[in-house]
Every structure is written in structure tokens, then in C-alpha cells.
């Protein structure tokens, strides 16, 4: 049995009085593709934001490669809250693509992709440039490298955002509803890039998505989240075609009729 690359152990998360995650246990294997589905407010996005360290869990443990993400041991061997250095040492294995792209508007497309490898990984600039150009070529934007983000369409922006995240060679990539801010006709080009990435294989992916067909197509496993708990999970076909719980059935019916 392969060791999981990410483990959530009894994760709870509250915002003020509202508990959005009520005990999440989840293992992600290296290279595994997991799709998170569920109604809005079910806590899907929070799950991946916790792993990206954009939110801190209220209780529970997240491990990446067996290392505790949010805690570290001090000199006496006692658990204390992780400092920035500790977080940075683990965060390098994780990448994220955002719903609203979050490209850096004051930098060109190429600069967006080159920034982190040059200043975080301290790689040689010429090498980084070469890799960035290859990466941008892969997402079909080799003719746009000198443009600024505001000169691109939403689909193009999202492809840049993916190239930028890929530059850091993460072992786990998080996708936060990456197509929901896009015009319908631009969704395809972004999904195409993700599909290629999924086929390439070695990178684990967690996708928060509303694209059910897409989840069915590329995911190894689908998780249905409802009111802060994992209600049902398993093989995509099982979950999406023959759902067991009433809530999932309800969700899928409403979802397909609303489209």
C-alpha cells in the first residue's frame, strides 16, 4: 500500500460561530485525482484553502509527506504552532489555481511565471525563462508572453495561472472552481489543459468543481461534501451515476436540472 501524500485527520474549521468543516478525514495518494463536489457553503473550498495554508484549521492535523503542516516541535520536543519558515518548507510541494486567477497585474505573463522560481527557488534566471516559455507554450500562450494580464481573456488568464503554479513543480495541485468565473465559451480551453495535466499522471490533483462530466472523466475518486462532512465518496461512476444517499441524489438532480 502506497503512503498518502496528504492526510487530513479529524479537521474542524469554524469562521466565528459557523462551523464549516465538522471532522474531515481524507487521504490523498501521490498522483491521485480527487474531485470535490457539493452545494455552495458545504466547505469544499475551505478544505483546499487549509492545505494551501490560506486558512488555519480550528482543530485536527494535516500532514504532507508525513510532516505536520500546522504544528512543529520546539527544542524540547513539544508541539507548537508552525512558524513561517516551517510553513514555507512544506508549502513548496503544493500549488494552487484560483477561481479569480489572481495574476499579478503589474507583471507580464512571462514575469508572472518567472517570479517564484527565481526568488523562492533561487534558480538561474535564464533557465527559468526557458522553462517558463516551454510551460506557456504547453498551455497555448507562447504568443502572449510579453502581454499584461489585463490584455488577456478570462480563459487565457486561467491558463497563465496554471502555468505559473506548474513552474514550482508541485506534487499536489489544488484547483478552486477554476472555471466558475469564466464565460461559458471559455471553459473548454481551461478544462483541456487540466485534462492534459491529469493524463501526464504523476501530480496529485484536488479539484473543487461544478463540472460533473469533467469530474467523471478525469477523477480517480469523487467526494461529495455536505454541511461540512464527507457525505459520500468513491469511484466517479458510482457517485455520479448511482448515488446512494438521498442528499447526493437531490444535489445531482437539482444540479442537472438547473443547467
Amino acid at each position: 500500500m502506497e503512503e498518502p501524500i496528504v492526510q487530513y485527520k479529524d479537521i474542524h474549521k469554524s469562521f466565528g460561530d459557523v462551523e464549516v468543516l465538522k471532522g474531515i478525514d481524507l487521504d490523498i495518494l501521490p498522483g491521485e485525482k480527487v474531485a470535490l463536489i457539493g452545494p455552495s457553503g458545504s466547505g469544499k473550498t475551505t478544505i483546499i484553502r487549509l492545505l494551501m495554508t490560506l486558512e488555519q484549521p480550528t482543530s485536527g492535523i494535516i500532514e504532507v509527506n508525513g510532516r505536520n503542516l500546522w504544528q512543529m516541535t520546539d527544542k524540547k520536543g513539544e508541539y507548537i504552532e508552525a512558524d513561517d519558515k516551517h510553513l514555507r518548507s512544506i508549502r513548496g510541494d503544493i500549488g494552487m489555481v484560483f477561481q479569480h486567477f489572481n495574476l499579478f497585474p503589474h507583471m507580464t505573463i512571462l514575469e508572472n511565471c518567472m517570479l517564484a522560481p527565481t526568488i523562492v527557488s533561487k534558480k538561474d534566471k535564464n533557465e527559468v525563462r526557458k522553462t517558463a516559455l516551454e510551460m506557456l507554450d504547453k498551455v497555448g500562450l507562447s504568443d502572449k508572453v510579453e502581454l499584461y494580464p489585463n490584455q488577456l481573456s478570462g480563459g487565457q488568464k486561467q491558463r497563465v495561472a496554471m502555468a505559473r503554479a506548474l513552474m514550482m513543480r508541485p506534487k499536489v495541485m489544488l484547483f478552486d472552481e477554476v472555471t466558475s468565473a469564466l464565460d461559458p465559451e471559455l471553459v473548454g480551453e481551461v478544462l483541456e489543459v487540466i485534462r492534459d495535466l491529469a493524463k501526464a499522471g504523476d501530480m496529485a490533483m484536488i479539484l473543487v468543481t461544478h463540472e460533473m462530466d469533467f469530474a467523471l472523466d478525469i477523477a480517480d475518486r469523487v467526494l461529495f461534501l455536505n454541511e461540512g462532512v464527507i457525505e459520500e465518496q468513491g469511484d466517479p461512476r458510482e457517485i455520479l451515476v448511482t448515488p446512494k444517499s438521498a442528499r447526493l441524489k437531490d444535489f445531482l438532480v437539482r444540479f442537472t436540472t438547473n443547467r
Partner: protein
Amino acid sequence: MTWSWEVFIETIPLIFKGLWITLGLTIACYLFAMIAGFFWVFMSRIPIKPVNWLFRWIAEFIRSTPPLVQLFFIYYAWPVVPVIGVTLNPFVAAILGLGIHFSTYTSEVYRSGIESVDKGQWEASTALNLSTAQKWRYIILPQAIPPTIPMLGNYLIIMFKEVPLASTIGVVAMLHLANDYGAQYYKYVEPLTVVALFFLLLSYPSALLISRLEKKYNRRFDKKTATL
């Protein structure tokens, strides 16, 4: 007392000499205010509530009390404060007094610039594993500072018009020269008019320039924030 064109013409070169001192002092005070402004921003970002609260109120106190009284405090009172007191020459006192007063304004400008940067920019830089210093240097400040340039420019003009306060503690610039001339010949209105004209001549075109800058930056900024 009647208006005398002769006196008016005669005082132009006299006041002009003071113009350079006024301008020099303006720039010195302004630079001080620009740099000291970061101090307040820094203090307000320390994640300790009481420290935060204390510095917010100190800044509020300085901002909402008269700079003239603050000048008098620094020039007349500071030298007799036990242990830490030092006698300052009028120039240094003016730079400190007006500089500190206006630093509480520049800090607000910086703060508004920083707050105008989208939250997603912080998140994306975290996701790319940038350190705190790198986030500020490469992502936040390059976006926060440009839109504040017109506002900062406005404060330069405002500073220019506040600098004559320094004449009250003996800085011999335009206003002081005019008042001296008045005291000597009992002709106040003409030299004061010359002073006013010099102010107008410099600040009106600068204000026009700034409002043009403002339009330019606003346009750029709108485009940027519309869709990142």
C-alpha cells in the same frame, strides 16, 4: 495707506530670495513626512492589539491638533524637557514639526494604497511560497504605491502652503521677509501680495499637473482592478 506699485516692484526680488528657502524647507519637510509615514503603517501592522491602539491614537492626536502648536512645542518646549531635551535651530524644528504632522497623513495614503490591493494577490503569493518580505517587495508595494502618487503629490502642494508657519519660529523665508519689510517701512500689503502671488504661481500649475496625473493613474488603476 494706499497701494504702491513701487513698493510692490521693489519687494519682488527681496521675496524671491526667500522663495528658495521656502522651497528647500518644503522638500525637506516632505521627505521627512514621506519616510516617517511608513513608521505609522508599520506600527499599525504589529499584531498586538494595545500597541496598535496606542499608535493609532497618537497618530490621531497629532493629525487633529494644530501644527502651529506642535511647532512651538518642538521649538520652545523640547529644549527644556529634562534629560532628552535638545535645543534645535528653527530649520530643524520646522522639519521635525511639519514632517511629523504630515507623516500622519502620508501614512493614511499608504494605508489606503495597501488596502486597495486585492486579497487574492496575498493569497497567490502565499500559494507561490513567497516570504513575507518578498510579498511586500514584489507584489504588494509595486501595486499599492503607484495609485497613491497623485495623492502624495497633493500633499506636496499642501506642505508648500503650510511651510510659512515656520516663520513664526524664525525661519527667514518668504513670509518672514515680507513681515520684516512691513515692520521696517510700515508697508505690509504689497510684500504680502508678492508672497501670495509666488504661492499661486507655483501651486496652481502644480495642482493642474497633479489632477492630470490623477486621471492617468485612475484610468490605469480601474483597468487593473476590473479583472485581475
